């Protein structure tokens, strides 16, 4: 992305951020609360603009095309760039199965998979998120019957079912216990081969554990962007150094 600015009303929350995400890798965005990392993430699949009064300036190029270009629809962008939020958001009116296939059922008729294909895709998504063994015998049960960690993995499965190119994770473990957190982290680690992942976290250990590259943000600016081991061991910017060594804020 290039020279990206994001606003809430008049407040400029993300300032002139430019960086390149490597496909097939996990990129972590770290920084203190309120530094604009979630907003930055939400700019990448055009979710930022769904907030009243919010707007975006600059370019985000995805497969060579600016996703804010005139002929690009936000809906199409979001189908290729999936997102999982801080808190689990299963649809409470749907069964586990319907939750996973929710993104498939709304595809245009020409792209919509048949019932059998849907069934297979649901199973594949649930297997990839290691949920299959836990829920395969109760796919018709309500999704709210699952535990918090299972719900969050269900949300990842739901995002994966449509085979997105990029998966955006906005502090996916913030509301989970350590064991569930570990499962999500393992999941991220395994998924990197199939899908490019960008994860926002304010847990630095998490970024260090699971990401290939890390971006450090401070008050809306991108301070440093480097391979994770470089950023955590030999940061170039003194502010990054202060933050990753815990001498900050």
């Amino acid at each position, binding site marked *: 992305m290039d020279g990206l600015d994001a606003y809430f009303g008049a407040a400029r929350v993300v300032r002139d951020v430019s960086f390149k995400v490597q496909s097939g890798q996990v990129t972590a965005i770290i920084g203190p609360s309120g530094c604009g990392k979630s907003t930055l993430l939400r700019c990448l*699949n055009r*979710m930022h603009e*769904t907030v*009243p009064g919010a707007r975006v300036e600059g370019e985000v190029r995805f497969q060579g095309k600016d996703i804010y270009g005139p002929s690009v629809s936000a*809906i*199409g962008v*979001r*189908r290729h760039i*999936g*997102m999982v*939020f801080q*808190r689990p*958001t*299963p*649809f*409470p*009116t749907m069964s586990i199965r319907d939750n996973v296939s*929710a*993104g498939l059922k*709304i*595809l245009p008729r020409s792209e919509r998979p048949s019932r059998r294909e849907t069934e297979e895709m649901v199973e594949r998504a649930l297997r990839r998120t290691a949920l299959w063994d836990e829920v395969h015998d109760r796919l018709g049960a*309500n999704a*709210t019957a699952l535990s918090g960690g299972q719900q969050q993995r269900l*949300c990842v499965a*739901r*995002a994966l079912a*449509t085979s997105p190119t990029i998966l955006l994770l906005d502090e996916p473990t913030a509301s989970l216990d350590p064991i569930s957190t570990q499962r999500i982290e393992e999941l991220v680690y395994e998924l990197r081969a199939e899908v490019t992942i960008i994860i926002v976290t304010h847990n630095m250990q998490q970024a260090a554990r699971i990401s290939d590259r890390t971006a450090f943000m401070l008050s809306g600016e991108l301070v440093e962007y480097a391979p994770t081991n470089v950023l955590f061991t030999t940061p170039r910017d003194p502010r990054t150094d202060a933050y990753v060594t815990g001498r900050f804020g």
Partner: protein
Amino acid sequence: MTTQSFTTQRRAAWRSYREQLAKSTARTLSRRRLVSQIMIALTFVAALVAVLPLTLITWHLLRQGASSINRDFFLHMPKPTGDAGGGMANAIVGTGVLVLIASVVGLPVGIFAGLYLAEQRGARLATGVRFLSDVLNGLPSIVLGIFAWGLLVRPFKHFSALAGGMALAAMMIPLVTRTTEEMIRLVPVSMREAALALGYTKWRTSLGIVLRTAMPGIVTGVLLAVARIAGETAPLIFTAFGNNFWSVSPFKPIAALPMQIYYYATSPYDDWHAQAWAGALVLLGLVLVISVAARFATRSRAGLGSD
């Protein structure tokens, strides 16, 4: 020496202060306990008085009306004056037809208006609509009857079930609109965002996810609105008008339970009075059943999740 006496003085002062404090604390404490007990007793009496009318009404209706309720009451037509027996079959069915017409007209309008208010909560038009629907909610029902009379009775020169149904729909719309809005607002923003992030279009998010999630609550509101309009008399007097004969046509005058009760109760005949009591009991039972159904619909809302 001086210091010692000073210390002794201070200690004595401190002790007397403590004693006084203890005494007054004990006094205020017992006073507070007393006030608390009086208040609890008062609220208890108020609560009792609040449910007293319902118990009295139910008991009275049961005593007066139960004897006239039999199979004939539900299955037979009213008999001419002087003939014994007969029932209110036409009025029971008439109320059903009226509620049906009101629901067919009022539910879509109310639910979609509520959806609009919830989705466009800040818009100036929404604020206006919300205020006006509150006003409509507080409007005396006889005024709504006059409105329906002017709109649907006078131009056609005859009373009709349709006019009555429309008057009831006008009562129902603001009720349904406001509950729908409230219920939709309870759906967390994160749910909406999750749907949008999956590639749902805006309208699909609204209808498929948000409205569907709020549905159990909306159903409750709808049932309560139905219970409310089923017992209305005033809007029907010069719209549906009443009918002593069997009719289910929306274009003809139609009987309704509340109106029939009114006519029978104000008549000079004893057996009609008994029938009016029975009708009132049936109406009460109807409203009770709907309210209980609403309760159950609310209970299934518990499945909505913690946030």
